């Protein structure tokens, strides 16, 4: 029971961090119909800025705050110089261009910080465990969950309850109609992109102490974020939230319990191979199953 609760919390934590990435990705895709592979690079840049400034200043909060501002600025610069030229091109050209951005961003980071992973220490005050009704859970992970929940809630209210959020949703469901009704989608998009970049930085900085800060960290999480938004339905913020939590919990629980379950049910030779394999495949099986029965994801933004 305790193990289950612990793994559920781990899954929730992964899911919320994925949501921070998926939210920006799905809105960029939903509004501008743009495939942005460089989203993972913003996550990497956020993590590196945070690591560098926490190291320099000694303050975790200051590091995160400057990572958010810095990454948002990088995002805006990227949008205004390059991405803006890509909106009218085909999806495939966008894939090629933003793949090029990944290569360039990785090499620039490698030139500045080197190829070795950087260790980002969690704040000393949070490095211990906390007693949580019968079991001990790392305090830092709880803070990450809390911060993730707060940001997710803020974003949800922003998108569903404010005027700007209404413009965003209008843009996502029918951009031309939104433009005709007087929404300046161009400016709106720059703002959405900045927010998306800031969310990447939050995720990168918070996950920094848990995962390694290294070149290429953005690509694998980018694939997960794409899995999330495909499951949720591209362009839908609610879909991104549901998809993130599903992927986070399924992936974590699968890795924690499947090998154990397989050992109980199958001969050990097969189980030792099948357990880890199926655990890694689980989220892709989930996505394939969702898309098989709902070919436009769980919450299609466009009908």
């Amino acid at each position, binding site marked *: 029971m305790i193990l289950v609760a612990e793994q559920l919390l781990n899954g929730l934590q992964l899911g919320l961090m994925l949501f921070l990435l998926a939210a920006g990705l799905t809105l960029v895709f939903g509004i501008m119909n743009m495939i942005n592979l460089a989203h993972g690079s913003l996550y990497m840049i956020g993590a590196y800025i945070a690591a560098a400034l926490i190291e320099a200043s000694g303050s975790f909060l200051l590091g995160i705050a400057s990572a958010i501002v810095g990454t948002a600025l990088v995002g805006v610069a990227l949008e205004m110089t390059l991405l803006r030229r890509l909106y009218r091109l*085909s999806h495939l050209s966008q*894939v*090629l261009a933003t793949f*090029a951005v990944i290569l*360039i961003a990785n090499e*620039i980071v490698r030139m500045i910080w080197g190829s070795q992973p950087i260790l980002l220490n969690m704040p000393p005050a949070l490095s211990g465990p906390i007693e949580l009704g019968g079991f001990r859970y790392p305090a830092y992970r709880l803070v990450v969950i809390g911060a993730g929940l707060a940001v997710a809630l803020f974003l949800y209210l922003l998108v569903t309850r404010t005027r700007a959020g209404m413009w965003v949703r209008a843009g996502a469901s029918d951009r031309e109609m939104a433009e005709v009704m007087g929404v300046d989608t161009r400016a709106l998009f720059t703002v959405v992109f900045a927010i998306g970049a800031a969310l990447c930085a939050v995720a990168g900085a918070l996950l920094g102490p848990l995962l390694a800060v290294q070149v290429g960290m953005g690509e694998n999480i980018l694939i997960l974020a*794409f899995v999330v938004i495909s499951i949720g339905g591209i362009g839908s913020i609610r879909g991104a939230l549901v998809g993130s939590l599903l992927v986070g919990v399924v992936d974590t629980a699968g890795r924690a319990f499947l090998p154990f379950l397989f050992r109980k049910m199958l001969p050990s030779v097969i189980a030792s191979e099948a357990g880890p394999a199926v655990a*890694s495949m689980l989220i*892709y099986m989930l996505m394939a199953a969702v*898309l098989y029965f709902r070919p436009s994801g769980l919450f299609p933004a466009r009908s």
Partner: protein
Amino acid sequence: MRDTLYIPLRPWPTFGVVAALVLLPPAMLLLDLPFYVVFATRVLIYTLIATSLNLLIGYGGMVSFGHAAFVGTGAYTVAMLMPAGIVSAWLLWPASLLAGALFALLIGAVSLRTRGVYFIMITLAFAQMAYYLVLSLHALGSDDGLTLGARPSLGFLDLNGDATFYYAALAILLGALALVRALLNAPLGRALQGIRDNETRMEAIGFATYRLKLVVFVIAGAVAGLGGGLLVSLDRLVGPNLLHWTESGLLMIMVILGGTGRLLGGVLGAAVLLIAQEVIAERTIHWPLGIGVVLLVVVLFAPKGLSAWLPNVSRERSNT
């Protein structure tokens, strides 16, 4: 009759390029650069694989993000059969082709229910499953992969000679290109391009669009499987990385770089990317930066890909 979709065969440029490719190995030996014969063979194989993906992306509008799975299937088929005592390339390569086709039939049958970005993602999903399966199976060498003692034998020809292997790969590539061209000029190819441009309309006219797409998906998977079989025969080595999603992404980048929906798009993209990589990597360890800049320049100045610069570009093409 010449119409807009017909892909003409231009005898003189074709002859010139083929002649140059035939003369490449002796030229390399004269220049004392034998290593480049193997490199050139790898480029030929990748052009074959990229051409099969271009058939899907460029002519069928099916943006597959899982093509490496078929390459890997073909490669592991050869790597599994050889230790079992089958050493003839006449059996091994068709087997890799067949394996690629079968796997493509399986994946395509499910994936083709979806369209657009969801198709991209579901093909990725299946390829990832294949990747993790290979990674965990001890029979397939897990993350170490499999190695072969020698290259397959091609009867009277000794494939252990690099130049011989090069010519075998060249012959297969030219044969495959001729077949792809014939396929695209045939009614199936026409229907395929119709489906790419407007699937609903093709359905309304009475084409069985799902089945047609599946047929082409299987053909592309077969060619990719053959490519994988050739790769492992050349390197005598295969690892799970051949199935990793970055490999699928790289194949996609080759096709887009070369130009989707052009017969030579995959060939051009694969050749330019691999050669550029080789050339830049010799000069700086930060070669991905150079590749990135090259790709950006191509997107901004030739959004239809490099083959837009080839002569005889008269047709408007739209994709996805």
